[in-house]
């Protein structure tokens, strides 16, 4: 056995975590940071929550779109240089954080085009640019990962950079930032994190350290995801979900994910389905597809989902199936309470795009680490509902 594990991010987690922001800026000699966010968060005055704790001068970029592209990254890089900034603070969900990672890499690697630095594990340590990540959802785990995905609008593809030098220096997990998330987004991002953890625990690149993070994430999400729907303002529950998202990020950043993400990325690119929603629709069919090779690992998942009684009463060979059934019922409850889409049947015109989605999924790096080999026809079968909708 041989594996590698990397996690260099300092975490400031808990109530009033943002009050540490100024101190951390000082630690990293940041005197004029560039704050990155999107228009929605800016309109909702999330920047004010942050700048309340910042007496430094700063520059602000608020135009990061939902599906950020290489052009946005290159624009921000130019803006950073023009404003003479000396560090990055990214405030937002997956798109903002991934964009910030792209900007960070372009600055630290001193490159002219993001296409020069695509690939995995190829980048050397670059120029030091302080980079803080402040997630406002509990799902992507991007604050912890070594991966950035950005779109290339002209080529209509997603570009991927995987490098140990991409992680943020400090991540702030403050429940104040997720307390007002809409319930549907809370459910969708929570299932995204759960999918990260389950795929990290069951894919070919798993290792003992990533397992520890994945198990912790599965336990924490299962204990909190239904509670948060009834108590969305509860700081402890929100913090637990933020921590679980971070833990799942640490896990999958080192073990990668699997077929759920491979198809989910393609579904997002072709049918413009929100990533968390795609995970909610694909998790069960893909687990059923993988069941024959992941039976024992899924059985473990049942235990980590907190179903000790069910686990002890179920014959060993049925544990994996029971885990799938339990997650399916959890998704159904979330669907009833928040309108979370859980069926591939709800994707408009999916049948017209199945071939394109399957083709893109086949070229996704996540597929190579799926425990069960999948070809194009297998992916089409999943999308056509052969493993349930």
């Amino acid at each position, binding site marked *: 056995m041989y*594996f590698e594990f990397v996690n260099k991010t300092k975490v400031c987690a808990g109530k009033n975590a943002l009050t540490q922001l100024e101190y951390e800026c000082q630690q990293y000699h940041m005197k004029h940071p560039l704050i990155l966010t999107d228009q929605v968060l800016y309109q909702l005055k999330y920047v004010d929550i942050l700048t309340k704790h910042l007496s430094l001068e700063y520059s602000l970029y608020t135009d990061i779109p939902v599906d950020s592209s290489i052009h946005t990254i290159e624009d921000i890089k130019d803006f950073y240089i023009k404003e003479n900034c000396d560090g990055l603070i990214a405030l937002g969900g997956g798109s903002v954080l991934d964009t910030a990672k792209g900007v960070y890499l372009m600055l630290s690697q001193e490159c002219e085009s993001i296409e020069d630095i695509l*690939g995995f594990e*190829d980048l050397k340590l670059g120029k030091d640019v302080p980079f803080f990540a402040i997630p406002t959802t509990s799902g992507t785990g991007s604050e912890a990962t070594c991966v950035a995905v950005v779109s290339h609008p002209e080529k209509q593809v997603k*570009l991927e950079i995987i490098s140990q030098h991409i992680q943020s220096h400090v991540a702030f997990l403050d429940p104040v930032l997720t307390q007002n998330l809409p319930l549907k987004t809370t459910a969708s991002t929570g299932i995204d994190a759960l999918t990260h953890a389950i795929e990290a625990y069951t894919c070919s690149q798993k290792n003992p350290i990533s397992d520890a993070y994945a198990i912790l994430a599965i336990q924490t999400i299962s204990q909190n995801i239904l509670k948060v729907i009834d108590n969305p303002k509860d700081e402890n529950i929100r913090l637990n979900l933020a921590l679980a998202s971070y833990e799942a990020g640490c896990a999958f950043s080192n073990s990668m994910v699997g077929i759920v993400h491979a198809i989910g990325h393609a579904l997002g690119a072709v049918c413009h389905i929100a990533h968390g929603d795609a995970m909610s629709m694909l998790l069960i069919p893909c687990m059923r597809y993988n069941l024959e090779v992941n039976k024992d690992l899924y059985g473990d998942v049942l235990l980590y989902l907190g179903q000790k009684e069910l686990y002890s009463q179920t014959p060993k060979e049925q544990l994996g199936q029971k885990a799938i059934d339990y997650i399916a019922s959890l998704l159904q409850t979330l669907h009833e309470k928040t309108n979370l889409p859980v069926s591939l049947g709800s994707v408009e015109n999916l049948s017209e795009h199945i071939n394109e989605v399957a083709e893109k999924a086949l070229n*996704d790096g996540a597929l*190579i680490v799926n425990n069960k*080999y999948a070809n194009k026809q297998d992916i089409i079968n999943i999308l056509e509902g052969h493993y349930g909708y």
Partner: protein
Amino acid sequence: MKKLIIWVVMQFLYRGMKVLYHDDPRMKEELDGWKQDKFLTLQVMHGPSITIKYTYQKGLQKVKNVKPDICITFKSIQTALLVFTGMMSVKSAYLEHRFSLRGDVFESMRFVRCVDLVETYLFPRFMTKRILNHQEKKYKPTLLIYIKALFA
């Protein structure tokens, strides 16, 4: 000696891919899926390398001194030897972080599948059973591919 073995297998893999481009529709379909010309480099840190030019709908040829679109670098001679002698699969090498890649990760997946396909033909079955998690059908006899790769 290790470097020499790797160099020889590299040449053989290239020749195998070149032959299969014309003899196995799956190889052609994979490479043509790029829809444009591509330069690929396969190299070993402090060891041999090979750069291949794929010309859209025409095939493969060896080239020198070009900046590749995709560059795969094995991090050590030891591991490269395991991969090039069929002791370790490309997938396992990826899982164990044994190589790095510069270029578009999505586009590189086609190349990984092409290597799997050429290994199906060139490596004996007892080896491919161990290193590949699926067995592809052979459209042409292995001996024919060997002869063409050696003499064509």
